[in-house]
């Protein structure tokens, strides 16, 4: 029996200014009264699609239908009016206002001169009771838990009359118990006749909650399936499997000494969430250790802890026998760390400054760039041009601003800067994210070169083919923990890694312990 589609996206394409294709002929059909999962890795195009459905972005091509009628949203208000509600990943709330005030904001009770707070509280409690979404109407939002903020976000949508709810990775901020509670509430909503689109990349959650799923990969739809018809292996393959694999020639591993290790690294953030949970591993000279995992499972915190920008962690970090757990950033660099950060424009460069200024950031204070005690322009130019040429950066002048370069060229500059610095440990955090194929291939080759030069390399990447083709050994992170350790990369597959990453599979303590050695 063909069921009625309450929301439908037909052949949606979105091209961002600058030519990035975030969605390409994406199709989505959501039936009335179902909980529909939209799954895919980070960067697969989920958020872009949702923003278009909610009127925050205009599609370049394609059509959107609500209740069978074509709609053209020019803003979120239009989408709200058509009965859509969105629970953003970053809550759209005013922290200093109460729960009830946030609920009615923009559609206030009372009149212009007096907002009726009593009525707001009454409505809040009424909705809260009706949908079993317990909130404290009179508490300020800044004082309530993230779980309650999320309930408020759902109530806000319901108050505005939404019957189609879009939840963007709602469980990212929740504990397992809170997640379970949320699922009960969502099921209750479904029974009340609401339709829910649930965006996630956590397989177990999708299986527990949803009936059908649409899978996105690289901005394209991989199809819509009944969840019962697919096993985890299959989903994992559809989600993370890649056809394009850039082959890298690599010598047999020839490890030297064990020069870097972290032991029992623990980090609890300000909100009390455990970001790193007893992480231990070692890297030898000439070894590439890959860290696989879906974004946001502790990889960024791990890197920050090692380079020294995160100072509140516990545990020991040792480089060449020296305890650097509490050393400042500069001291760690000088002890022998180079770092290619995950966001090249935010942390890896100063985009408004020149190529020269960005290339010398690790050595600007050393004597190699100075003559007569002052930084020597010629030496800086020579130093910069040497690195840029060696790393095949396409540029007009070493004095132009970094912001004028393409992403791939910026990344090559940063990799050049970090590799030129004579470090023993190279941390590569998402080294090829969002850059062109030529640059990807080049940077991967350079990483292999450094391996031949007996550097210890920590490679963090959300791109599994990259991890598989470069690494000698792999640890997989899930929710701040190492859940898998693979010492022989040849014996594993993307699918197996996918299972670890999605939290379906976990190695024994003993096996994971193998990642660390004295």
């Amino acid at each position, binding site marked *: 029996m063909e069921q009625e589609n309450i929301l439908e996206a037909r052949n949606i394409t979105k091209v961002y200014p600058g030519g990035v294709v975030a969605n390409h002929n994406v199709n989505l059909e959501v039936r009335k009264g179902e909980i529909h999962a939209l799954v895919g890795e980070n960067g697969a195009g989920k958020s872009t699609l949702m923003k278009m459905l909610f009127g925050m972005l205009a599609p370049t091509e394609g059509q959107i239908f609500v209740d069978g009628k074509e709609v053209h949203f020019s803003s979120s208000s239009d989408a709200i009016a058509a009965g859509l509600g969105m629970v953003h990943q970053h809550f759209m709330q005013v922290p200093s206002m109460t729960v009830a005030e946030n609920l009615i904001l923009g559609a206030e009770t009372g009149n212009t001169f007096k907002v009726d707070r009593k009525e707001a509280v009454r409505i809040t409690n009424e909705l809260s009771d009706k949908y079993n979404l317990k909130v404290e109407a009179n508490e300020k939002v800044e004082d309530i838990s993230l779980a309650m903020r999320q309930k408020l976000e759902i109530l806000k949508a319901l108050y505005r009359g939404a019957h189609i709810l879009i939840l963007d990775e709602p469980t990212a901020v929740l504990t397992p118990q809170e997640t379970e509670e949320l699922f009960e509430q969502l099921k209750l909503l479904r029974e009340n006749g609401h339709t829910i689109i649930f965006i996630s990349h956590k397989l177990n959650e999708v299986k527990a909650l949803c009936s059908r799923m649409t899978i996105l990969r690289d901005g394209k739809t991989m199809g819509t399936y009944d969840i019962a018809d697919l096993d985890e292996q299959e989903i994992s393959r559809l989600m993370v499997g890649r056809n394009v694999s850039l082959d890298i020639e690599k010598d047999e591993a020839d490890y030297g000494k064990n020069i870097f290790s972290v032991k029992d690294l623990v980090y609890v953030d300000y909100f009390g969430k455990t970001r790193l949970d007893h992480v231990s591993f070692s890297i030898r000279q000439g070894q590439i250790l890959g860290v696989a995992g879906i974004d946001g499972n502790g990889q960024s915190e791990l890197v920050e802890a090692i*380079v*020294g*920008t995160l100072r509140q962690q516990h545990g020991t970090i040792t480089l060449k026998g020296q305890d650097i757990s509490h050393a*400042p*950033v*500069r*001291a760690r*660099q000088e002890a022998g760390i180079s*770092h290619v*950060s995950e966001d090249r424009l*935010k*942390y*890896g*460069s*100063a*985009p*408004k*400054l020149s190529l020269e*200024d960005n290339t*010398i*950031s*690790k050595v*600007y*204070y050393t004597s190699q760039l100075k003559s007569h005690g*002052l*930084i020597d*322009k010629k030496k800086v130019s020579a130093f910069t041009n040497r690195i840029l040429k060696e790393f095949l950066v396409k540029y007009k002048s070493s004095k132009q601003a970094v912001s004028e370069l393409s992403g791939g060229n910026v990344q090559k500059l940063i990799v050049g800067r970090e590799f030129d610095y004579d470090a023993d440990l190279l941390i590569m955090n998402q080294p090829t994210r969002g850059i062109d194929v030529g640059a990807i291939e080049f940077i991967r080759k350079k990483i292999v070169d450094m391996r031949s030069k007996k550097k210890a390399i920590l490679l963090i990447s959300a791109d599994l083919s990259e991890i598989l083709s470069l690494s000698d050994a792999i640890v997989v992170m899930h929710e701040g923990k190492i859940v898998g350790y693979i010492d022989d990369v040849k014996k594993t597959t993307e699918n197996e890694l996918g299972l670890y990453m999605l939290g379906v599979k976990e190695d024994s303590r003993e096996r994971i312990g193998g990642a660390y050695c004295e």
Partner: protein
Amino acid sequence: MSKKFTAIRLLCAFAIAIAISVIIILLVSEEPGTAIFNLFLGPLQSKRHFFEVFSSSVPLIFTGLALGLVFKSGNFSMISDACLYTGGVVTAALAIEVALPYGVHPIVIMIAAAVTGGIIGSIPALLKVYFHTNELVTSLMLNYVFYYLGIYTITKFLADREAGAFASRKYAETASLPVLLDRTNFHLGYLIAIGVVIVLYLLVFKTRFGYEIRVAGSNPQFAKYSGINTAKVIILTQVVAGAVAGLGGSVEQMGMYQRFNWQDSPSYAWDGVIIAILSGNNPKMVPFAAFFLAYIRVGADLMSRRSDVQNELVSIIQAVLILFVTAERFMSGWKQRREAKKALGGEV
């Protein structure tokens, strides 16, 4: 494209400022010809006036450098006003109370003024780093505190009771900067200012500290990942900026005055804002921006003396310039149309 666009935008801002001043003159003046002529060409009429432009630009160079440095580090403190004023007071004290030989006297005074300026300059920065205050708010308040302290020092210890108005006793002759050209007031201070321009240029572009200022001001996150101590940079930058402003106060006093009579705080620090903006926070360009402003000022003075239009017109020109030069979207429509045209043209 971007450089050319900046230049065109700058020209348009100037054109608007000039047009507005001409319109105002035409509206209020009975002798608009004389007024306009003197405003724009007055300083070129005689050697004396032309060099007056240079000497008037001296304090502007100092505050322009100081403000530019502070802006470059990503901060917004107006404390240079207090540094300059107090630098002037220190100069008065040392020029009156201390006897030193020619040559040595000005040097001692300048060092003392710079040190004082540096110390004062550090206060808003220290408050910002350790107490999380907004440096603009604290510096605006502290400017008044130091202004009154200065007035107190002058009236209590250095005042000339004979003089009819607020003024200190006369400075020792050893404590003045020599005039370099006959029948002008072009004094050694200009060369000192240029010297400081060079020093700051070297500091900003040729030293480790300057690099740290530029990186921390441009992208603090990147600075952190590069191992730069950003709190230290904030404090030291303001110390240097304060010292430059303090030095400016002493040079101005020694070059242009025989006694201290700043009853109101001169607004050089506020003028420093426009100099810093016009120079793009680059020390190298500061003398030119300062020359421009001083030129208009001298022109305006001549205009007010020789016609019925008052020199406060300059403030209006200054304000219009700042507004349009810093308006990010000013003419952005024009730029977009150009780009669109280019892009479409490229496709054909």
